[in-house]
Every structure is written in C-alpha cells, then in structure tokens.
C-alpha cells in the first residue's frame, strides 16, 4: 500500500520553485510550477553534479516539457518522468498529492 507522508503546507513552497523533503530516509525535491496546478516530486540528487541540490533549481519550460534546470551545470530533468534532456540518465520520481492545504509524498 502506498504510504503518503505529510511534508509541508502548500504555502511553504513559493510558486514556481521547489523544496526538499526527507521521506523515509530519501531526499525528495517537490516542485510547484506556475504553469500547472500540479505538484511534482523527483529525487533531489543530481547524478551529473553529484550533489543533493535539484530542489534549488529553476523551473524551466523546454519546448513544452516542464523541467528543472540543475543549479550546478544546468542540465534539464523532466518533472513528470525524471528523464534528463541532455544526457542519457534518469532520476527517480515520486508520488505527490495535495490534501487541502497539505502536501503529501510517497516513496
């Protein structure tokens, strides 16, 4: 059974930016793009820059793909499926949902 964990209020995430949450020992980057009403959750670890920084990246629309640009070397990771647009790597994605004003994540 999917175990959703309450991590923060929606208002804790500035519109069009991300935050990082610790869920079951995993670092999860949660984004709140201005472009859609949806939230997205991906792994916080940048496998190219080798650091836990993706939540601090800039939300970027690349030809219709909603991505985050790594704050280290600017590769784009798709928020929907974790795929990197420049390199042949992919990062895990997680389930995230909004209940009322609360943000819940499952890993």
């Amino acid at each position, binding site marked *: 059974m999917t175990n959703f964990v309450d991590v923060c209020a929606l208002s804790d995430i*500035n519109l069009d930016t991300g935050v990082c949450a610790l869920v079951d020992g995993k670092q999860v980057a949660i984004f709140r793009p201005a*472009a859609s009403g949806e939230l997205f959750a991906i792994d916080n670890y940048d496998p190219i820059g080798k*650091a836990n*920084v993706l939540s*601090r990246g*800039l939300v*970027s629309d690349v030809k219709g793909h909603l991505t985050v640009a790594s704050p280290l070397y600017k590769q784009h990771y798709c928020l929907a499926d974790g795929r990197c647009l420049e390199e042949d790597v992919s990062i895990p994605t997680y389930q995230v949902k909004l209940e009322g004003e609360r943000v819940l994540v499952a890993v």
Partner: protein
Amino acid sequence: MTTKQKLVVIGNGMVGHKFLESMVDLEQASQYEITVLCEEPRPAYDRVYLSSYFSGKTAEDLSLVSEGFFEKNNINLKLNCKAVSFDRDAQTITTEAGETLPYDKLILATGSYPFVPPVPGHDRKNCLVYRTIEDLEDITEAAKNSKVGVVVGGGLLGLEAAKALKDLGLKTHVVEFAPRLMAVQVDDAGGALLKSKIEELGVKVHTSKNTQNISDGDECVHKMEFADGESLETDLILFSAGIRPHDALAREAGIELGPRGGIQINNFCQTSDDNVYAIGECALWGGMIYGLVAPGYNMAKVAAQHITGAGSDVFEGADMSTKLKLMGVDVASIGDCHARSEGALSYAYTDEVNQVYKKIVVSADKKLLLGAVMVGDAEDYGNLLQMMLNDIELPEKPEALILPSLDGAAKPALGPDALPDTAQICSCYSVSKGDICCSVQNGAQTIGDIKADTQAATGCGGCTALVTQVMNSELTKLGVEVNTDICEHFKYTRQDLYSIIRVEGIKSFAELLEKHGTGHGCEICKPAVGSILASVWNDYVLDDKHISLQDTNDIFLGNMQKDGTYSVVPRMAGGEVTPEGLIAIGQIAKDYGLYTKLTGGQRVDMFGAQLHQLPDIWNRLIEAGFETGHAYGKALRTVKSCVGSTWCRYGVDDSVGLAVELENRYKGLRAPHKMKMAVSGCTRECAEAQSKDVGVIATENGWNLYVCGNGGMKPRHTDLLATDLDKETLIKYIDRFWMFYIKTADRLQRTSVWMDNLEGGIDYLKEVIVEDKLGLGEELEAQMAAVIGTYQCEWKTTVNNPERLKRFKHFINADKTDDNIKFVKERGQIRPASEDERVNAEDLIAVG
C-alpha cells in the same frame, strides 16, 4: 640537404614586420634563413596610434609582435643593430658594430625620417620630432618644464602631434607654411572649417607662416620669427613638416634612386638590383612615396610572394583616400579631391551652423565619382570611396550624395550588392567584400565575429558601417535568419525586453509573459528578466513575484559550490576593512568551520556554509557592521583600489576614498553581467584599473576614466573614455556609462564584447557618454539615481523577515542536514572530500 637562402631584412617597422608575417605565412618560408636588423631598441610597434601613448597606452600595448613570433618562426632578430652599408658584389651587409652578414636576398624596409627644415636654430634644445617611442619619451620629458608648445606642420601627423602636446597640458600652436591645414588632403573651404574647429578645441592655428629663425625668447625658451615679420614664443618645438625616405644605404650601394630621393622599385618591389627589394616609405613607385601604412603592407606582401615565387601579386600604386578623426574632428579625403582631372566638376555643401563641409568631384559627363572632401561629418566616406574605386555609375543628381536628406527622403546609398567581390572594404587590413562574405558563409553572424575572423574594421574603423551592411546582406542571401530572440518564450532581444519593461512599467515576469511572451519561461529568460526588473525597479529580489526568476546563486543570496554548500562574501568597499571587522569575520569563520580565502577583488570569501547556516552567519556579519557583497549576482562586485595618496609616497590622489565612495554608490546595481571597477592613485596603476569594466586613474590634473576591460578567459585592456575629470564629472560619466550598458547590452555580455559590437566602438561611447550626442545623459543619470535611492542590503531584509527564512534549510520537514556533504582537512582548513576520500571514512570531518 640544400642550404637555406639567406634573407636579410633591414628595418623592423610596421611594413618590415608585415613582410615577416607575410613570409612566414608562406610554405616556402622554410627555405629561408631570415635575419632582421632593427636600429631601434624594440621590435615593430604601431606608429599609426602613436599618440595613444600620451593617453595611457604603453610601448607594450603598441607592439605589433605576437607573443613568441620571432622564436616560433626561427627569425634572428637583432635589436639596436644599425646597418651602415652593403656590398652588392660580395652580397654582404656591414653593421655599426663592425659585423659582416652575407645575404642572398636583401629587403630594405628602412622607412623614413621626419624632415626638419634647415632654419637657423632648428637644432636648439627641445626642438624635437615625432616618430619613434624614444621621440615620445623626449617629448614627455621636455613637456614637464614647458608651458607652450608649437608644432611646425599642419598635416595629418602635425595635427596628431598637436593633440599629443595638448594632452600633455601645453598651450599648443600649429604653424603651417601653406595657406591651409592638411593641404594635400583637403581644399581651401575644408581647410578653413578644420582650422576653426581645431581652434575651438584650444589649439591656435597659424597658416601661411614661413619660419626663418629660432632664437632665445623673452618669456619662453624659444622665439620663432616668421617671414611676415611676426613672431611666436614657445618652450618646445615639434617638427612635423613631412617625411623623407631613408635611402642613404641604397644610394651608397649604387642603387637607383628617384630624382628627389626614394629607392626606385618595379611592380615586384625590386630595386635596380634584382636581389635587393625596397618596401614602405623608403620606396619610390611611379614617382610616388606612399606615406600610408596600407600601401606599405601591400608592398610587403608583393615582395614576399615574388621572392618565394609563392604568388604573382604586383604593386600598382595605391589609393590614398583616407578618413580620420583629428582631435575629435572627422576628416576624410578621397581620390582627386582638388578636381585636377581634366573637365572635373565639383559640388560642394557648407553648413556653418553644424560646421560640416562636403565636396564631391565628378567626371565631366557626371557619370563617375573622382574624389571627395569631408570635414565635420565623414559618415558618407565608405559609400563614396566604394563608388570611386569600383567605377559605379552616379545617380542622376550626384549632389544628393552629400546633401542632407530633407523631408525624410532616403539618400541614394550604395547597396552592398552593387559592389564586386573584389571591392576592398577594409583598407587597413586589405579585407575584400569576398572575404567578409566568406566569413559569413563560415558562420560569422555578428560584427564581433567578423572582426575576430577577418580583422576588418579593427584598424581605423572607417569601414564599420559598410562591413555591417555587407554582412547583413550576405546573411539575408544565405537565408540565415539571425535569431536574436532571447529564447523560445519571447520573440525579443534583451534590449527590447528592457525597453518594454521600462516603457510599459511592467513590474513582474508574469505580467511580461502574459503581454509579450508564450509558454512558461525557462532558465534563460527568467534570470534575464529578473535582472532587468532589478535594474529598472530595484525591488527585493526574493520577493514572492521575483523569487522564481533568480538563478542558482541569487535565489539563496550565496555562491553555490560543487557540493551544494555556499560561499559567503561580505562587502569591503574599496578593500578597506577595520581590525575589528577582520576579527569578526575570523571568529565567524572559525565558529562555523568555514574555509577562508582572499578574492581577487580585495575581500574575504568564506566557503563551506550549508544552507541552514546562511541566516545565522549573516546575522552575525550584519551585527559586526557588514553588508552583502553581491558576489552571487550579475551586479557590481568590487571597486578595487591601491592605497593612494593617503599613505603611498607616490600617490597623486585618494584612490581608496574614491573607491569606497564608488562602491557604495553602485552596490546592489544589477546588470547583464558582473561588473568590476578599480581606482589607482597614480599612473603606476597598482589597482590594475585598466583590466576592469570601469577603471579610474588619478593624474595631476584630475581623474582619467577607462572603460570596457576584463580579465578572465579573454583578457582585454580598457580604452580611455575621458581625461582630467573632476570627481563630479567622473561620477556623472560612470552613471551614464553603466546605465547605457544596462540598457543596450545582451544578456551575459561583458562590457568589452558589448563595445566591440557597438558600431563605432569607443568613439561612439565617447559621443554618447561625454558629448551626449543622443541626448540621453540626464535620463540615464536619473535612472541611476533611482537605483541608488532604493538600495537595500538584501541579507538585512532577509534576516529580518521570518517568512523568508523558512526556505533556508535543507529539508522543509526536518532539522537534519544533507549527509552527502563531507569535508576533509587540507593545509589546516576544510575542503570538499573527493569520491575516494568519501570511502575512507576515518579522515572525514563531521558537519552539522
């Protein structure tokens, strides 16, 4: 193995050096053992820009020799080595030191010397000439004890020399034998206008003056007496009354000279001895000595090709048309400007209000342009020159070419398509239309690309407009749409967006996107718009509506390092810091276990701070009196300074005081890229101001302002924008400069590249900033005043706002820290652990 041919070049001036460059470009060069005899103590330098020595350029700046040129090409350069004779039968050269050198081929590139009229007294003390760097040193020395200076000769070089004397602070006169200035290049009407313009600039011009005697003066060192009975007193005399070819060596060797001197050459630049060539100002071709550098360069190429057999170019004379800026006055002369051709007709236009004079000379049938003169406005030069050189048929009413366009009717301009591929567009570097088109075909898309690729427009710059037209036309033909859109979300350039935001009063990215964009924005347009909004409205950058625009560093007001930690840089204006401040920084760094290092901008950088530590660290820094240093922003970084007149034995003015004032004035100003400044207290330039975007150097007469330099990957020295400024004017110009840069530069474009892409370069900047030609001055100053008036320390605002501080922790839902951050010790401080070291857990330092 065949023995190499011995090739000896006498002279390493501009043309002599061009010959060497032409030789080593040829494959056949390897068959020659090349020796160069140079009488001067240094190898080739740029004599065309000699006067820039007085506005701050050094002998090294003027050098034409690329690094390691002689070594790389195995050329034996002998400096301070004067050739005194050569023997054509033995094929040997004798030097002043008594050495004998054999040659197979000999190149005479001995140049010319200034003609000093044999007036009694011409050899008195402080009677000098203007040709070499040594001459300039003598002039500088003599000027120190002089109040008045006279230049004898009102030609091109004479007026350059007059500018030099004026720059040295002397009351300057020009004495000319002919009835007008620049007698060769301009006519009476043009000469008269030139005279009045130059006199407006504070140089007194005396024409029709025949100097008869120079003797002791009453008020000054010398008294010059003229044939008309008048006299003039002066402390220093510079002779610039024409040049004479250095042909004595050839004469003594029995080589044929012209009746009035000059070494006779044929179309291959060979003298009457097949093994001896002459090039440049010592050579005489078709009865002419060519005193310009472009024909000399051409001769150098022709000679190199002929000697090696690598090509079959010939020298068949050269066009002597010229365009220059003399003391800020545009002067141009094309072809037969005196209408001496048979049946030639002229059209002239005089505008006494705006002080412009233009004349064209056309053929009897009014079909072809033969020549032109322009004073005060030489913008038409490129067009007219091409018309003449390429025999392009004139429009029905040729006068339209020089008349101002009334009722907005377009001038008959020469489209670049009318030119043949062989048309020489840049005569300084012999770049043809074909060369420019070829460069575009190979990918060049900006004038900066063309300059880097072909050198076109990097000499006198007179062809910049035409080069741009040719480039644009070729780009269109290739179907290359030069896409200057900032990104897929905005069909605008950064400059467009800047204007839109300012004019429409747009205050947020969302508003701009809704009105003028598509999609949702990306990491290109968001930070660019964030930066423009900050430059224009100067709101707090972490405000709700701006925060998502901020790039990696701005968004947490720190510089992110490779492991996701940050470095922290408090501002130390001018590099000045109290002992208490240093102790506070030391204590904070120690308490948080940070690595400390001094930056190039004279301040302290603290590394290894984790996100959650930033607010605490800044609380303590602010308590100790520090402000944010904006090291994370595309913003003003530092104003570096030397210690200046306060302490230094050589200091001329208070560089630290000015640096502190400037840094506090411009701190927080955001721009297309980072901005660096420096102030030096004297010309020893210890603050390295000439490598900054804006550099200021103290002189005895005020501040000199330099702009558009940078260090980094492609280092570039500054250009001089204005001299001898009082502080108020200096600050006014810097205000205008920064705002004009912010208004017009591309995203992430440093000032040097920005200037390279401005048509007109530094001269254009002078017109905009100093002369206020666009009438933008007050507006730019007001915009700067608005930014300065709304400054806030972003960190102070942040630490005082608990809502803002929520973001400054690694996890939104836990107080833990990132367990991936690992340090080890090196030289007594922390650094990020390498991947191997992470495995070796015992060396790691616990963080938290």
